[in-house]
């Protein structure tokens, strides 16, 4: 242990530059994954000890530039500006030197200590591109290190150089930076002098950089500048307006456009000196793969096959471990039931906490598999192709091609589906996708449809269920368009998307990816679900002393007695039958008692209280209570109905059917209830995920209110419309 200060190293670079692989190689399992404050961009950091130093490695979001157009870029830039890391390592994809240098030059301008990692130079070389690192290093006055991230080569060297750079004295001499067009340079100089003269001691950023950004009309920098420099700042900004106007006249272009051109011009000059590309036409495996995977005719069938395979793996293969976990939970609760005394605490533990948390933990296998598949899609580069194929269709809803995956997964389970929305880069797209995904009918709703449609539509049940699914899809499309036009207005994020070369994924990185996300699910969900379970349990377990309308226990005793007499008198074989009959008879009374109990608990009272709300939808108080408990998990709707209708075996479909048919429920009210179940507020686990992924109570509340309103209106239209039509 050196006891020295911690050296902070930020890893920056373009998406697909191999940055994450290098980060994983450096930090291994010592990673902390969280969010950047206030935004939903993933923040990864790791603390390691190496060469006698404590190194804090921060993985900045992958970006192409440092303009304030996307959250990722703002986050990356702010970290470098405000937290002043000791060193910024810019990871450069050697096969893409020109574009990578665009970001690199911007880090140089901020005046942070930058180190270049020329990554995957072996790949570049096999494509016939050679880079003269020494020359690059002299030209830009930046240390350059070769790395091969996926083979873990050059990483130690990289860290050594980073430490050396961090420990070196700040460099005072003029570095070689981008030189802009003449008039622009003049404007920068004027502005720089103005800033130093009038506001020099108020800003801690490099003054040339500040001047450049203000000239580029960078909103964030301007705001901060005024915030810090006050009156003087405003005066300077007035001056900037005049400067910009002159430049616009001179170049017939916005200054920022000219400056982008200038940067690429500067880079082109460097490229000419350091990079040699041999003339041979390269063989590009990636292009050949794409001949098949994005082929006009077979591209879609292959895509559908991959999605189908992912679905199968997630939900069919996942069903086995899910069963084991369910078994484990059941076992645990039966062991506890048997060994603990009948106390309130036991009830809370078994029926509240274990039942509640158990109902969520069963999603874990699905989530692990799904995220493994998604990581596989992302790491191989297929995700970009999926977006490429689907964008046309998704664009009709105002969404990005990548929104397809979360929406599709919604048919399985909304929890992983909403988590899958993380792959979307634009926050608006992400929120929009999260808001409409719950309308994709999840698999937990299937038992409800089967019972209701099976009971009331018999032969036509399949068609009815299909229509319900379709209604969900249509409503999600309509909602998407509506939100795009109102709440999440603005141009769709431009589709400008790189199609990175296909890569063989590294198993280590896939596993880290999968585990990171699943861990987050376990931790955060655990807390919210735990609290939710306790609340639901409390509502359905209290009050403890219920005044029953009939003396159920006396009735049970009577039945017991009369059977005892019969059994004593009967022969051996008849005895067995009679015993079974006795259990059934007592079961009926037990159920009646349970039914009255649930009617009189707080949950039942709330159900009765809110039943006027459901009356126009043709749903009685039992339905209301069932829907309320469905908040916990949609499957519960069926078992609650079972309990309320005093069915002997709540999970037995046949018995519940009979009870439903004789309850006064009609096909129309059943359809209305199905529509309501399809659309109404997502289950507790989903709400927890929405809260987590949007990072906002407001959006979470909106999602709950919106979906429930849509559900009510749709069910109302079905029920009242159907009545008008004479059904």
């Amino acid at each position, binding site marked *: 242990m050196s006891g020295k200060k911690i050296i902070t190293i930020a890893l920056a670079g373009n998406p697909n530059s191999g940055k994450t692989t290098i980060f994983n190689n450096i930090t291994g399992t010592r990673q902390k994954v969280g969010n950047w404050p206030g935004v939903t961009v993933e923040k990864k950091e790791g603390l390691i000890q190496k060469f006698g130093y404590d190194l804090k490695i921060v993985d900045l979001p992958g970006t192409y530039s440092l303009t304030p157009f996307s959250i990722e870029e703002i986050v990356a830039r702010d970290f470098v500006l405000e937290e002043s890391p000791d060193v910024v390592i810019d990871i450069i994809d050697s096969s893409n030197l020109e574009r990578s240098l665009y970001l690199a030059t911007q880090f140089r301008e901020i005046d942070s200590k930058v180190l270049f990692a020329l990554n995957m130079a072996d790949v570049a070389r096999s494509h016939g591109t050679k880079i003269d690192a020494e020359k690059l290093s002299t030209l830009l006055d930046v240390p350059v290190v070769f790395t091969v991230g996926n083979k873990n080569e050059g990483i130690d060297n990289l860290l050594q150089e980073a430490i050396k750079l961090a420990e070196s004295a700040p460099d005072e001499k003029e570095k070689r930076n981008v030189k802009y067009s003449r008039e622009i340079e003049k404007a920068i100089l004027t502005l720089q002098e103005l800033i130093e003269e009038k506001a020099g001691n108020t800003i801690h950023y490099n003054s040339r950089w500040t001047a450049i950004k203000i000239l580029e009309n960078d909103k964030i920098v301007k705001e901060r500048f005024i915030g810090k420099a006050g009156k003087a700042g405003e005066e300077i900004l007035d001056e900037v307006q005049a400067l910009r106007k002159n430049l616009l006249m001179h170049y017939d272009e916005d200054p920022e456009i000219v400056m982008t051109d200038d940067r690429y011009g500067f880079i082109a000059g460097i490229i000419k000196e350091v990079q040699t590309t041999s003339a041979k036409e390269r063989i590009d495996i990636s292009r050949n793969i794409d001949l098949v995977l*994005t082929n006009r005719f077979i591209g879609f069938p292959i895509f559908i096959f991959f999605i189908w395979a992912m679905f199968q793996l997630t939900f069919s293969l996942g069903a086995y471990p899910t069963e084991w976990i369910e078994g484990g939970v059941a076992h645990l609760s039966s062991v506890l039931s048997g060994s603990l005394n009948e106390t309130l605490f036991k009830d809370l533990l078994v029926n509240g906490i274990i039942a509640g948390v158990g109902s969520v933990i069963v999603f874990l296998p699905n989530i692990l598999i799904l995220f493994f598949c998604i990581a596989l899609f992302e790491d191989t580069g297929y995700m970009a192709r999926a977006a490429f194929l689907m964008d046309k269709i998704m664009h009709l809803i105002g969404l990005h091609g990548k929104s397809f995956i979360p929406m599709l997964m919604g048919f399985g389970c909304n929890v992983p589906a909403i988590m899958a929305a993380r792959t979307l880069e634009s926050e608006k797209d992400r929120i929009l996708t999260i808001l409409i995904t719950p309308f994709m009918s999840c698999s937990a709703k299937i038992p409800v449809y089967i019972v209701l449609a099976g009971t009331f539509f018999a032969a036509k049940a399949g068609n009815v269920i299909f229509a319900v699914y379709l209604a969900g899809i249509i409503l999600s499309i309509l909602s998407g368009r509506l939100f795009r036009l109102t709440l999440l207005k603005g141009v769709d994020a*431009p589709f400008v998307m790189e199609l990175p070369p296909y890569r063989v994924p590294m198993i280590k990185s896939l596993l880290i990816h999968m585990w990171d996300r699943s861990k987050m699910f376990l931790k955060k969900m655990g807390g919210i679900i735990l609290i939710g379970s306790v609340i639901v349990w409390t509502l359905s377990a209290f009050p403890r002393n219920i005044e029953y309308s009939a003396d159920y226990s006396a009735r049970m005793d009577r039945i017991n007695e009369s059977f005892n007499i019969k059994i004593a008198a009967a022969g051996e074989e008849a005895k067995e039958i009679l015993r079974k009959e006795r259990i059934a008879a007592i079961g009926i009374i037990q159920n009646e008692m349970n039914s009255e109990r649930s009617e009189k608990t707080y949950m039942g009272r709330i159900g009765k209280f809110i039943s006027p709300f459901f009356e126009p939808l043709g749903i009685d108080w039992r339905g209301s209570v069932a829907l309320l408990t469905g908040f916990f998990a949609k499957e519960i709707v069926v078992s609650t109905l079972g309990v309320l209708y005093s069915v002997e075996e709540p999970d037995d479909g046949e018995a519940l059917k009979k009870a439903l048919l004789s309850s006064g429920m009609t096909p129309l009210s059943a359809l209305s209830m199905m529509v309501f179940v399809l659309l109404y507020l997502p289950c507790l686990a989903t709400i927890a995920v929405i809260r987590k992924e949007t990072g906002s109570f407001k959006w979470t509340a909106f999602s709950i209110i919106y979906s429930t309103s849509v559900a009510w209106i749709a069910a109302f239209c079905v029920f009242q419309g159907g009545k008008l039509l004479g059904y």
Partner: protein
Amino acid sequence: MLLSEMKEGEKGVIIRVAGNGALRRRILEMGITKGTTIYVEKYAPLKDPVELIVKGFHISLRVEEAAQITVDKSQQ
């Protein structure tokens, strides 16, 4: 001609990138700048978006975005 009018396998040099602020800036920052050679690799099966090769990497743009880019096919 406009980039969106070019066919698969055609090549040209960018003359002008039009369009509104953020989108235009984004396109330029990805290296699709004046004077760059651009190659139309393929259109997606549904004819939108389009895959291009610029400066040695593959990038996709929606057709409406490609319509903001003017290309000279004769210059190569």
